[in-house]
């Protein structure tokens, strides 16, 4: 076993162009420092799977031209309005888009976690979401004697799960606490790459208090330290969102030219001082 703790650039280098990457929602643990490194690297043709929605992370990658396809339930800057580069890419037809609804993406991840080929879910019948998803199916519920159509979605097997968490140890065990969606995408993905605030020297699985919120190291290919690595997004129990910075992003990213200025100032430069 090679050491699980890597430098951030090595972790980012392990993400090939064209990779199919699962990312979490903004309240969970987004690997923003790694995302900026991907943009600096000039990553291309990524296929993003947001589980289930995204904000700045997807918008930044799309605006920087790193993304060929996105499957998502929504990309939005929340209170600050629509995600401008996502919106421009969709109206401009420059990315492939698979519109979903949150629990359909959770269902696909659950199927992958369970090793099942598909998962059934309620809802969706009669919606245009379903009408535009030829890769989903509608079955008659085999347990019903009366007509009962049920949507089934295929298992989602991302190649890479990429996220940010508070703690990891040297065995690659990663503490996520209540943020269980991070555990789910690690289960579903073939490879899991994680940035963390800090590496602890103790074994996170050895203590019952931390074990219950820890992803075991055998799911994790590599971890890299990235202090404030979710910035400007929040990290639960650690730091809130940087509201002023996000407002600046929303303002600048409203135009292609402003977005380029944002990249120059915050992304393409060497890593910001903490």
């Amino acid at each position, binding site marked *: 076993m090679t050491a699980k703790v890597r430098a951030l650039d090595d972790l980012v280098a392990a993400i090939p162009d064209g990779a199919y990457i699962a990312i979490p929602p903004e309240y969970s643990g987004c690997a923003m420092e790694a995302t900026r490194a991907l943009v600096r690297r000039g990553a291309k043709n990524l296929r993003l799977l947001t589980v289930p929605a995204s904000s700045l992370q997807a918008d930044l990658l799309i605006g920087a031209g790193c993304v060929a396809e996105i499957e998502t339930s*929504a990309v939005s800057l929340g209170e600050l309005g629509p995600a401008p580069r996502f919106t421009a890419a969709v109206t401009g037809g420059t990315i492939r888009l698979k519109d979903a609804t949150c629990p359909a993406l959770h269902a696909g991840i659950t199927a992958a976690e369970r090793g099942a080929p598909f998962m059934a879910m309620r*809802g969706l019948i009669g919606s245009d979401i379903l009408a535009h998803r030829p890769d989903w199916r509608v079955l008659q519920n085999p347990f019903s004697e009366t007509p009962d159509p049920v949507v089934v979605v295929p298992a989602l097997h991302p190649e890479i799960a990429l996220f940010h968490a508070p703690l990891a140890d040297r065995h690659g065990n990663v503490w996520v606490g209540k943020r269980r969606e991070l555990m789910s995408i690690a289960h579903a993905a073939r490879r899991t790459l994680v940035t963390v605030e800090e590496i602890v020297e103790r074994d996170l699985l050895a203590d019952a208090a931390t074990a219950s919120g820890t992803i075991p190291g055998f799911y994790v290919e590599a971890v890299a330290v990235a202090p404030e690595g979710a910035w400007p997004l929040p990290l639960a129990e650690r730091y*809130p969102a940087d509201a002023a910075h996000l407002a600046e992003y929303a303002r600048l990213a409203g135009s292609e030219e402003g977005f380029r200025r944002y990249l120059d100032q915050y992304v393409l430069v060497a890593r910001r001082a903490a």
Partner: protein
Amino acid sequence: MRLFGDARHVAVGAQSPIPATAALLARHLSGGRLYASLLTSPAHNFFTDGGRELFDCAGQGRIDVFFLSGGQIDGEANINLVAIGDYAKPKVRFPGSFGSGYLYYVVPRVILFRTEHSRRTLVPKVDFVSAPGWSPPEVYRPGGPVALVTNRCVFAFDRMRRRFRLESVHPGHTLEEVLDNTGFEFDRPERVPETPPPSAEDRRLMREVVAPELATIYPKFTADVFGVGKAA
């Protein structure tokens, strides 16, 4: 609050500052009996099984009330959170459907809200159905819309007739104004009552108790509406 019925668990999704205000107010008025889960608030999020738990909970029948909005809402209560114009090459793109393609079907009392009450938002027919207002009888659908609240009025939704019915017009607004600004047809009683305003005590609770709780997730909203200081 009347729209909550005898709910035990009200959940509020992303980007919903007004519903969040209503939910937290209702929780305070219930003495803590009512669970109010705000998905994006660490302090008002009782879930411990990850982002899917809200949907699981709703599927289990444990969420009584949810709020949904729409870029467009039509007279059959179809909602559109996706796009205006041709889906493949839209004129306007909204963020996306979030959980609406599921929650609208399974939560018994879905309250639609849309602060901009205009012919642009309340349309005869939505361009994209994120979730339909009603479903044929063979479709599993324990949930659906009960009301639509706008900045001008309150509509109730009649699931049998598949139509909205005007319930009340807010103080300072008129029936004519509602008729002028609504793109779909709706039923109405002979005399349309005025929406009862929140009591002085409710207004105090909202300003003094609820708004500070909301400030971490909706800093802009609470600053604009309640004058509560922005988060650092």
